[in-house]
């Protein structure tokens, strides 16, 4: 009986360790993803989209092999940056041309992944509420539970940035996002 109990405990562990053998992981970054919020924008939540073509070869470089599948994917970090205002350096007669919109008009940010695949529901992955309006870079709080594995095995993913805007804005609002992911694969 003891032997049976011992083996029933040891066997699953052996199985799990065998499965885990050979699994690799790599940290990858998606940098400068541009989100254009087309104005006019109303006070309240507004959505920006970035259509991401998933290219594992480009992401994993030497680690890539033909036909490979991602076994797990999670977010490690996310940040949102203001796009530098070009007219800052120029003196123009029209003072309105010099106005750029940034984090002063934003109350909170939520980052999500979505897919056209019916089997893959949208997933929120990071947020910041409230944001620090005086900073040029907003470091998001990432979800520890968000599982992005299914998205990384798709060819097209929509990265969605929701910005809660505190007042109406006449123009477009542009933000850049950096996302760091950890991918595991065989």
């Amino acid at each position, binding site marked *: 009986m003891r032997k049976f109990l011992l083996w029933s405990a040891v066997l699953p562990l052996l199985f799990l360790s065998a499965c885990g053998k050979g699994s690799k992981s790599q940290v990858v970054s998606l940098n400068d993803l541009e989100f254009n919020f087309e104005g006019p924008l109303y006070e309240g939540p507004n959505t920006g989209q970035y259509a991401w073509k998933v290219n594992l070869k480009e992401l994993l470089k030497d680690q890539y092999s033909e036909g490979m599948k991602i076994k797990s994917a999670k977010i490690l970090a996310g940040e949102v940056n203001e796009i530098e205002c070009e007219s800052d350096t120029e003196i123009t007669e029209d003072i309105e041309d010099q106005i750029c919109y940034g984090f002063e008009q934003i109350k909170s940010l939520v980052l999500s992944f979505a897919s056209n695949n019916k089997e893959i529901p949208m997933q929120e992955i990071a947020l910041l509420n409230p944001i620090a309006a005086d900073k040029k870079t907003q470091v998001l709080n990432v*979800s520890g539970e968000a599982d992005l594995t299914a998205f990384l095995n798709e060819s097209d993913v929509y990265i969605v940035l929701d910005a809660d805007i505190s007042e109406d804005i*006449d123009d477009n609002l542009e933000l850049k996002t950096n996302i760091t992911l950890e991918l595991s694969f065989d």
Partner: protein
Amino acid sequence: MKKLSLLALIGVMLFSMTAFVNQNTDGDRLLGVWEPSNGRARVKVEKIGDKYFGRIVWLKEAKDPVSGEPKTDKNNPDESLRNVPLKGYRMLKDFVYKGADVWEEGTIYDPLNGNTYSCTIKMTDKNTLDIRGYIGVSALGRTDIWKRLEIKSKKKSKK
């Protein structure tokens, strides 16, 4: 005879293409701002990729009565996301247009209890939706009627 066959082929191709385009754009009738029957929220439906999603853009009681702060998704099963503002929360997710004014395969989230239900949307007329949330099979569910809101554009000004 050859010309006739060619014309027929072109005709079939054009018909198929038109049907495909219509299928894609007919679903866009769902876009807009909608109000549930209780009148406590307004939800804006938008398209991401080929799917339809609905965000809360207005809440009758936007602030927590105890703290006085804007309400957040405090019942979210994922603890790290409980600070997501409810105003702006995407409560309708992943709807696919099936034709005949029906959108399916989506979910509806109830922020009052943190539960997510399967959901189908049926447009009964251009300003009315039957939103049916259910668990498991559609027969075991509840239907709410949502009305379209006409949002008048307003002049905005720069700071």
